């Protein structure tokens, strides 16, 4: 069974630029999550989708972050414009029941 796929693996941008990350969940998993993991901390949930609907986006900085899952399968997370403090690893996870499975993450560096 293929795992959660994410791309790109690494991205370096300058502040005020925009960036997008892509995630393809495990086949058949209805729930998809995006997490932000700042160096030295545990992952923090940004947004949770159930199929193509948003379940929880309470911690998503909506002035600069957006995410979509239009067909209920893969998802895109966008940051526009990026700030220095957005430097982090962005993890995508999916689940069908109570256990979440994570992708390799996208490491973002904002200069």
């Amino acid at each position: 069974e293929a795992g959660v796929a994410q791309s790109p693996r690494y991205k370096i941008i300058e502040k005020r630029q925009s960036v997008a990350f892509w995630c393809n969940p495990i086949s058949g998993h209805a729930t998809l999550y995006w997490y932000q993991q700042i160096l030295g901390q545990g992952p923090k949930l940004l947004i949770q989708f159930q199929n193509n609907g948003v379940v929880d986006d309470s911690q998503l900085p909506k002035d600069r972050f957006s995410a979509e899952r239009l067909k209920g399968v893969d998802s895109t997370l966008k940051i526009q414009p990026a700030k220095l403090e957005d430097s982090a690893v962005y993890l995508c996870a999916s689940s069908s029941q109570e256990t979440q499975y994570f992708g390799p993450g996208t490491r973002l560096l904002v200069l």
Partner: protein
Amino acid sequence: AQSVTQLDSQVPVFEEAPVELRCNYSSSVSVYLFWYVQYPNQGLQLLLKYLSGSTLVESINGFEAEFNKSQTSFHLRKPSVHISDTAEYFCAVSSGYSTLTFGKGTMLLVSP
């Protein structure tokens, strides 16, 4: 609201020594508990989980954790560690299908 406390940010041990990584949680409802491991430059891999039933759960690579409801703990143990166990370990809690809340992680450093 739920929270997870991992008191130790780093745990250095020698190879073949036993280790315990501590995790305490707080939640007002019944919980599911998880340990994830993160190797350098990789995503999180599920190590083991407690959903219900036996309070002692084991992983395929020799780790085990015990759910202690009275002490609200889910400590991770291994009787003999290997160099390859060097990684960051995250404890996490959820209540049913809710989101995961993670601790800050414990870096396990195994030296020869």
